[in-house]
């Protein structure tokens, strides 16, 4: 590590590193620390990145897609910026404690320069808080909870994706127009809880009523009782704020009950992969849906990115690939601009930075910038299923189309309402 003047820095991370090693092999830990100090660490031409995410469990498909996107970004950045990027991975499962162990190991043993990854907001918050406390930059790649850039924000934890409230505001207007009363089913953990709050706020701000909510455990197989409750509430619409592939189960069970024709169904965060497990005729089960990105975004840069993902990854392109790509892109560029991997230096290059790299075009254009609460303000989209005969499967699945694009500034919470006091 180096300070602004290029001198080695004795940071808490070096201490952690040496302490951990010393605990295991005594003086060897000290020599490791001394070696690190003497070696500097500011050499941004040779970067070591930790990618901790769900590679097993119910979020595995999301985690792997993010990692695939990050690897593609690393390849692009190596070519463009003449840097070397080595990615070390850690499987967090869907367990905050496991996530913490993995990131600690990557930092203290693998000596990574900065970290990224994560799907579950609970896991990401645990890793991000620890990383920040220890002066390690961490991109919460796929964590959409408002807490990440809100009440639980941390100096060196960043939210490169749109927060729940941004996506809730994206579909808020449509939900307000679609019904006067709503019932919300949400996954009962950080992401779902903040999603429920955000959607409730969007509806109440529009003068509508949330007549009931149901907290469903996650992961869960049987959503029937919650759907029964929603159907009994006489609400005009049902918000299905259900995480991951569980939404596919819930959608299947909603269709099996035949309720999709009687209610307006909405979900603020549509991920294409969830719907690829449904029949095409049922992919349009949601009447109102928001999205960070997807193959629905139709421009040259976005289409090229999607084609490259289709060629290089196991799954067809969807938002998690982009989030992995965006995390790597933004973190590496910040380090290169700062000519340092020190967390403070990277933050100096991130906060207030207006994104101008090609990720901006891939995302669909529009202003993108990092705010003081470490949120990447960016455009969001409302989408709908294409007519069945227009759904494409080759060279990759494209089942949805955008109906409206929202500027980030129009959907993001005012800074004063985030509960984050970073400056």
């Amino acid at each position: 590590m180096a300070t602004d003047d290029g001198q080695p820095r004795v940071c808490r991370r070096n201490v952690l590193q040496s302490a951990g090693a010393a605990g295991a092999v005594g003086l060897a830990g000290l020599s490791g620390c001394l070696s690190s100090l003497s070696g500097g660490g500011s050499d941004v031409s040779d970067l070591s990145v930790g990618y901790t995410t769900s590679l097993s469990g119910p979020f595995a498909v999301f985690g792997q897609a993010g990692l695939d996107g990050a690897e593609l970004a690393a390849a692009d950045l190596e070519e463009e910026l003449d840097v070397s990027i080595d990615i070390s991975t850690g499987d967090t499962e869907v367990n905050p404690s496991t996530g913490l162990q993995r990131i600690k190991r990557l930092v203290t043993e693998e000596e990574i320069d900065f970290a990224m990854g994560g799907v579950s907001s609970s896991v990401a918050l645990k890793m991000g808080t620890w990383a920040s406390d220890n002066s390690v930059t961490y991109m919460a790649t796929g964590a959409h909870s408002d807490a990440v850039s809100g009440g639980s924000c941390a100096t060196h934890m960043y939210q490169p994706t749109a927060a729940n409230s941004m996506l809730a505001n994206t579909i808020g207007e449509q939900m307000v127009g679609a019904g006067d009363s709503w019932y919300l089913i949400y996954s009962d953990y950080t992401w779902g809880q903040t999603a429920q709050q955000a959607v409730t706020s969007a509806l109440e701000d529009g003068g509508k009523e949330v007549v009931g909510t149901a907290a469903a455990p996650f992961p869960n197989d049987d959503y029937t009782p919650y759907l029964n409750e929603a159907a009994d509430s006489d609400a005009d619409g049902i918000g299905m704020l259900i995480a991951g592939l569980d939404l596919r189960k819930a959608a299947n069970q909603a269709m099996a009950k035949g309720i999709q024709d009687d209610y307006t169904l909405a979900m603020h965060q549509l991920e294409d992969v969830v719907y690829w497990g449904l029949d095409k005729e049922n992919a349009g089960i949601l009447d109102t849906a928001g999205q960070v990105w997807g193959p629905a975004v139709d421009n040259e840069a976005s289409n090229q990115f999607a084609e490259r993902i289709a060629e290089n990854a196991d799954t067809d392109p969807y938002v998690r690939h982009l989030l992995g790509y965006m995390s790597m892109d933004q973190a590496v560029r910040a380090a290169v601009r700062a000519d340092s991997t020190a967390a403070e230096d990277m933050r100096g290059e991130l906060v207030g930075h207006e994104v101008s790299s090609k990720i901006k075009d891939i995302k669909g254009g529009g202003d993108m910038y990092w705010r003081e609460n470490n949120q990447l303000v960016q455009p969001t989209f409302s989408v709908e299923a294409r007519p069945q005969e227009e759904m494409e499967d080759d060279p990759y699945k494209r089942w949805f189309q955008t109906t409206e694009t929202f500027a980030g500034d129009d959907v993001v919470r005012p800074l004063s309402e985030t509960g984050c006091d970073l400056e």
Partner: protein
Amino acid sequence: MSTSSITNRSRELLADVSPAWFALALALVVATVAGFAHQPGLFVTQAVGGLVYGAILVLITLGLSLILGLMGVVNFAHGALFMLGAYLSYSVVVAWGLPFWTALLVAPILVGVVGVLIEVTVLRRLYGSEPIVGLLATFGLTMMLDEAIRYHWGTTPLGYAKPEVLRQSVDLGITQVASFRLFMVAVATLVVAAVYVLISRTDFGLTVRAGVQDGEMTEFVGVNLPVRFTAMFFLGSAIAALAGVLQAAEYGVNSQMGQTFLILAFVVVVVGGVGSLFGSVVAGILIGEANYLAPVILAGLAEYTGIAALNISGIRGLVPYLVMLFILLVRPRGLFGEEGLLE
């Protein structure tokens, strides 16, 4: 039996009930009525849903209960066999391109063979040992099977489409239920009935039960007990796989499903009473109903008492464990367990 003798018998039974039990039963009835009165439509809908879910639980539990009840083996590998059946069905349908109905037949047979291998190579050597030995052995087998499944199929959740004929919903008048769920209930009912007949009404079942009670004497009269025990393990494993196939079609497969449902299956077995097939059936239905109805009942109580705190969010996930806790406190042997067991 005359009317007066029935009345006398009822009085005797009531006399055996302690005031505390009576008060508890009364409170449950009042709470249930409050739940029904508060939301009659939802109450009936959830009651039907609970019945269906309970039947599914029964099917998942039956193989475990069979092996535990008849052979005294705490088969911790039941969850892994259940999961293996689910993953095999995925391969049959997706990788081999065969119909779901083939998977429904092939996967249980293959998993039954795996069960036979486990019984012959591991468990047969442990009969007569302390139960903990069998439990540890099957726990080890669970880890091996889990890792084998992860190695072969990976950890990404998988799924396949249900057969066309079972994709529609069925209108029961008061509510709509997915036809596949009703199919699961039908399969569960058939399997329970078949197992009951096999155990209670056939010479095979008679000799197995005799062997469990006195193995030495049963073998002395010429019964080949090892073969029968192996056949029972085949049956238990095949039923676990059958449940796995149905589960896979309805919910998909993932590498945690074995553990998730094993815990739930043990809860059902404990509540029903270890060793009681009938108990498992009743407990499965009871837990299914409790799971669906508890929130409705609590909402009704909250409404009529004015105590909003009674309407506990997220109570549903806790319900099976609360039922088990209650049963273990008041009747450690379970609802229909053998007297003295765990007491």
